[in-house]
């Protein structure tokens, strides 16, 4: 990175079915908390970037940049970015680019989503906007269905058993017990995952991250310092439709973004102490870990069998609880991941990884069509 981008801190709402809050309410709450926690003045903020996917479809609200900007007394310049489920990560990436190019010195980055104001079928249809409208939607595919196609191929290639696959969601729930912002804070026995109803074969309900409301906000600055800096910020794209991919069991966007991020930071992958991973579906989690290069193809399940992915394990994955247990308000997730990494690196995480100095945030849009990777480092 050309400039040192410091993460000053941030705040978030709880994630979940938040009936009493509108999209604007969620944004305001997250922004308030972020400003409180970082002790900056609202007027210190030069620009606002917000990541959100379905504001138009679920809240009748586009033009979100100015909505957030209006929360601040001086209404700074603002913009909204969108990359499906990677909207939050993309917002952070965009903010880094603005900071590095000197367009701003202190930026408020927000991620927000409000999904429960509209009927379930509307959300189901809207989620397909993350896929290819002309190639994927006409056959009646749903978003879990698209990931299920990768899951079928993955399980066919590597013979993962149902029992073992259930360990993935169980691990996330175990981690979230201590997280006050998580949607689900109870442990989940693997048997419950194996028995949950099928959504799109072979994926079951508890293999899938939930529908959630929520918002998160962080403040990045090149002017003000903090013990945490962003060591790398990389964005990669793949072809939108699964039918155009070379592989059904690997996402090139993750490989590309992570390789470039490691190069940018001059790190090795084993330097990383904890990972906030985009666990939208349990089989996707396995694919991501393999694409990030932490294990051979078909072997990621071993990490879960051996409990290496627990916060006290050799490769802590989603110590916050990830998308599965924290919830997945689409645009908020990428920003919340940075916030959770910040907490780990400043020793403030409820499920603390010991001696966490370097962290990875991995945010994906669509079926691996977009990937945003951030590497964070504690420089205390």
């Amino acid at each position, binding site marked *: 990175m050309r400039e040192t981008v410091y993460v000053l801190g941030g705040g978030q709402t709880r994630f979940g079915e938040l009936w009493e809050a509108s999209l604007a309410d969620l944004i305001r709450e997250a922004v308030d908390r972020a*400003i409180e926690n970082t002790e900056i003045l*609202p007027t210190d903020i030069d620009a606002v970037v917000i990541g959100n996917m379905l504001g138009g479809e679920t809240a009748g609200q586009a033009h979100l940049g100015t909505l957030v900007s209006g929360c601040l007394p001086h209404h700074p310049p603002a913009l909204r970015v969108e990359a499906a489920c990677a909207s939050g990560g993309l917002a952070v990436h965009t903010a880094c680019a603005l900071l590095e190019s000197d367009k701003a010195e202190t930026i408020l980055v927000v991620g927000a989503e409000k999904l429960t104001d509209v009927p379930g079928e509307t959300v*189901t249809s809207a989620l397909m906007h993350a896929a290819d409208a002309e190639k994927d939607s006409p056959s009646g595919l749903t978003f879990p269905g698209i990931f299920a196609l990768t899951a079928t191929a993955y399980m066919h290639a590597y013979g993962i058993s149902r029992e073992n696959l259930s360990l993935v969601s169980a691990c996330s729930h175990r981690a979230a017990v201590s997280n006050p912002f998580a949607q689900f804070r109870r442990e989940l026995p693997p048997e419950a995952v194996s028995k949950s109803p*099928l959504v799109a074969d072979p994926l079951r309900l508890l293999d899938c991250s939930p529908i959630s409301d929520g918002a998160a906000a962080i403040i990045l600055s090149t002017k003000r310092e903090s013990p945490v800096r962003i060591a790398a910020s990389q964005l990669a794209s793949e072809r939108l439709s699964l039918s155009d991919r070379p592989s059904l069991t690997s996402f090139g966007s993750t490989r590309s973004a992570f390789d470039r991020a490691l190069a940018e930071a001059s790190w090795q992958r084993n330097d990383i102490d904890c990972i906030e991973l985009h666990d939208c579906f349990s089989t996707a989690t396995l694919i991501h870990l393999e694409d990030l290069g932490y294990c051979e193809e078909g072997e990621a399940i071993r990490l879960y069998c051996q409990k290496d992915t627990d916060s006290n394990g050799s490769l802590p994955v989603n110590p916050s609880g990830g998308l599965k247990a924290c919830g997945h308000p689409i645009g908020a997730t990428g920003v919340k991941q940075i916030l959770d990494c910040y907490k780990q690196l400043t020793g403030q995480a409820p499920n603390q990884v010991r001696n966490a100095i370097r962290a990875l945030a991995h945010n994906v849009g669509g079926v691996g069509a977009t990937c945003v990777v951030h590497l964070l480092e504690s420089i205390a």
Partner: protein
Amino acid sequence: MRCSSPRVHRVTSRSPTLTLNPRPFVDHIPALHRRTKELEKERLLPGKILSFTTIRHPPNGFGQEPYTVALIERIDGSRVLAQLTREGKPHAIGAEVIPHLRRIRSMQNGLHVNDLKYEVVKTADIPLFTVHAYVLALTGPCGVGKTTITRSLLSLFSSVAAQVPVYTTRKSKRTDIDPYITVTEEKFETMVKHGEIIAHTVLRDRDDYRAGYRKEDIQAIWKQAKLPIVTTDLRLLEGLSKALGRETILSCGLLPPGTSRRRMLSTLLHRLRSRGQHTEKQIEAQLKVAEADLQAYSDHKHLFDHLLVNDQLETCVESIKELVTPNGRV
């Protein structure tokens, strides 16, 4: 410090019938028209299935019944995502399909949407089993590679094979990858008494523990038209033989490479040591068992259909694959 604009009290109705349009975008007439013209350009080509899923909760307009969507590669190399027809042979990765024009859904305004669905005309080039099928049993001494071979087979045949879970009184280990289901001594005994568990024995790890297979599990796998696989030992094999009938078991005994018994044991010793999972004492004990296992191949010839040497994994798996494909056994 708080942001300046006051929080507005929510006045909007929380009714779920709030205005927004739940219809898919392709419901708009120009988009529908373009799609019809696209179909006109499409060549009707057969293809094969690369992957599939069953959508349990269809989106608006697609009806109530679940349907299967597949990623299909047509013979000209192009790919398409499309529903499979309900008629047709069972779907599987590699199955061959042909296109049919069908009514995919109807729009709220009364227009019907027609699109291509694919019918499976030839299921994948993998074994088709009859209902009263058989069980593939792999037996062999510790260290010969049963687990590795089983995993390889499961991944080769994942849509038509499944491992039979082992009910056991042993506590599950961190290194367990196989499907063990731990129950109490009492429960195990009850299951044996009621005939739920049809083959059981006492095994030894650090301590003695019981292990067995449930009839229901094997039948459930048969019902799905899949091949049950067991990685087992001599006594369990005998038990299964008695319970299901010897002819129901395709029994493969696995041998370590080596021209003499001594050489074979030496290979096993080397493999067990390199796993690093056991103490020397445990390995010694396992080797004794291994010796007995190898002896069993001579003593219990009738329990084995084939003896295969596991020298190279791929070769051994290929041999087993040949044994289970239709020309090998009906």
